[in-house]
């Protein structure tokens, strides 16, 4: 036993020495190869996370001096960590709020790409459903409880709607998807705005049978498992939504037309606000006035402190973000996650904001 212990100790010791030697080697070798490797950390939105991953892979091969670690923590955490300086790039589906901006004036919200959200339904035998903001607000506040409700029937003439109870599915975790969905309801339905409002989590009105699900994947699973359910899901899940056999609703936009989320209708929403986007780019693309605009469209933001502690960080962040809104906006990257590129006018505004990072 004693001998055994001794043996073990000596092997441990040797392993330790070896490990030390190795780490010493690498730490000596690294500065010799490239003298300034800047490590950036990106953290935040789980919707942006897949895009950042494919971006960083290609970006790193062309820019060996900049190393970027990506993490998926949620939009709220991304903003909070960027403000605290824990990460250099916070990723968020929503821009930084007025109240936060007032407290932290150096925090920038820089659009990198455009995303949208689909309203999906699990209605056996029904396709081509049309819905509107007031109908969805009614469903999610419990005033519209059955699929054959007169309001739904009025929007869907000729569709045989079942008499089953509606199962509304919402996000349980804090989410940019909840933010843009509730912004849509607030913008289209005054009573929703005054009673529930918008946010990344909501104080959902209590409804018998409603389901809270975690993440877009959880929303998809819950909608698939529950006939007569309705759910809101980010368009980056479009192929999985289709595979699950869920329908995608056409939504009534501000001009009164029913539109499906397609590149054309999402692009139309972006174009309709690109001329009026303010220099700080904190603008909503929800329920915009374009005649063919899809109503639930949003910018995906990088949240960055314009006042970086070292110029090396600032240079690296500028390099990466500039790459992201130019090369990174090419369809090779964006198509993989069903995002759309920034319109030229917005890209110029983003470039101007990126130049502020010092």
């Amino acid at each position, binding site marked *: 036993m004693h001998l055994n212990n001794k043996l073990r100790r000596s092997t441990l010791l040797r392993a330790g020495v070896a490990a030390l030697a190795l780490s010493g080697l690498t730490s000596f070798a690294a500065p010799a190869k490239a003298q300034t490797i800047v490590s950036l950390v990106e953290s935040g939105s789980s919707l942006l996370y897949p895009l950042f991953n494919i971006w960083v892979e290609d970006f790193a091969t062309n820019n060996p001096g900049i190393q970027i670690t990506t993490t998926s923590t949620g939009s709220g955490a991304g903003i909070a960590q960027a403000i605290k300086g824990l990460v250099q790039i916070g990723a968020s589906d929503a821009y930084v709020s007025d*109240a936060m901006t007032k407290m932290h004036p150096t925090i920038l919200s820089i659009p990198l790409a455009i995303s949208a959200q689909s309203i999906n339904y699990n209605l056996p035998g029904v396709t081509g459903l049309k819905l509107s903001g007031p109908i969805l607000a009614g469903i999610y506040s419990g005033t519209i409880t059955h699929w054959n409700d007169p309001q739904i029937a009025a929007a869907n003439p000729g569709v045989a709607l079942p008499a089953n109870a509606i199962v509304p599915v919402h996000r349980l975790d804090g989410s940019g998807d909840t933010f843009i969905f509730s912004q849509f309801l607030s913008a289209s339905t005054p009573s929703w705005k005054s009673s529930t409002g918008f946010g990344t989590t909501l104080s959902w009105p209590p409804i018998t049978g409603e389901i809270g699900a975690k993440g877009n994947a959880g929303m998809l699973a819950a909608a698939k498992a529950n006939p007569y359910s309705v759910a809101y899901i980010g368009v980056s899940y479009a192929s999985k939504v289709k595979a699950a056999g869920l329908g995608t609703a056409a939504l009534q936009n501000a001009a009164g037309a029913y539109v499906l989320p397609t590149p054309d209708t999402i692009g139309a929403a972006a174009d309709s606000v690109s001329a009026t986007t303010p220099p700080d780019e904190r603008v909503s693309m929800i329920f915009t006035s374009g005649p063919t605009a899809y109503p639930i469209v949003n910018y995906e933001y990088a949240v960055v402190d314009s006042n970086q502690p070292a110029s090396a960080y600032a240079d690296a962040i500028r390099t990466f973000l500039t790459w992201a809104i130019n090369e990174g906006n090419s369809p090779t990257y964006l198509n993989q996650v069903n995002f759309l590129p920034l319109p030229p006018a917005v890209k110029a505004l983003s470039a101007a904001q990126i130049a502020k990072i010092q």
Partner: protein
Amino acid sequence: MQIKPFRLTLLALSLLIPAALCAVILFLLIFSAQAIGFNGFGFVTRIIWDLGDLYGDPVTVRGVLVPAGANYGILVFIVGTLLSSAIAILIAVPLSVGAAIFLSEAVPSKIRPVLSMLVELVAVVPSVVFGLWGIAVLVPFIGTMLGPVMSKYLGFIPFFAGGDSGGGYGLLAASVVLALMITPIIATTLLDALLQVPKENRESAFALGATHFEVVSKAMMPMVRTTLIGGIVLALGRALGETMAVLMVSGGGLNILPHSIFSPISTIASFIVSPLDSAEGDPTNMAVRSLAEIALVLFIITLLTNAAAKLLTSGGLHVGKRK
């Protein structure tokens, strides 16, 4: 003289754990102090949880800056926690008592280690795996088969009348997942105790003409009762604090108390996780502080259950020692 540094090291190491515990309590108290003041006692009796308007200007309420409309109450989560854990215990106890008796009495001693290892293995399955299984298998099963059957035949009992069963996500799914997670805890504790029952007790009961059932129920079970209670409380501690698996199948009930066994619920532990990301967007930080206050409540509840366990067993957990 040589022994002193050794003793000092041991002392320091052993103090580390209580020190960490005190640090956690202190942190929670200090961090949530402002929230405790703002929320008052109504925190545990209100059934509304509203972060308020995180995007507008904060307002001053009761002397502190909070988002407009912020109102925090956690009665729904307390009820969800206690109910799901209680039902989980109700399911798990008969299962694990049966398993433990089977393993100690009916299985040849050569196979016993293999089977008991299998039971122990269930205890080390990560909870997220249980959650995934819950979403993929259990929830659809409850939603389409068990739920409708139960509400049809047991619907006359108030708490079982689910109407249509709400899709499977909810109190029952959470309880079953929890029950599976805690069954091995109770079973292995009980099995160890059953194997420690002196041979003489078993044999004299047999000699008196008792049947095998009577030997187990009258000669053995009374001897391990305190261990059983201890195991249950240990399991209860796990069930009360379980987060991920519950979050995945509970349906996340909010602002509404469960009215049937199929109702969506939230537990305290799972609710600390789900709105945390949004809470971080609160410019006044009150939301995160209130979540810390929830953690404090959970801490108190687990502390109370553990204290109850100590009272009930009064050292009975160490059955292994009396041989």
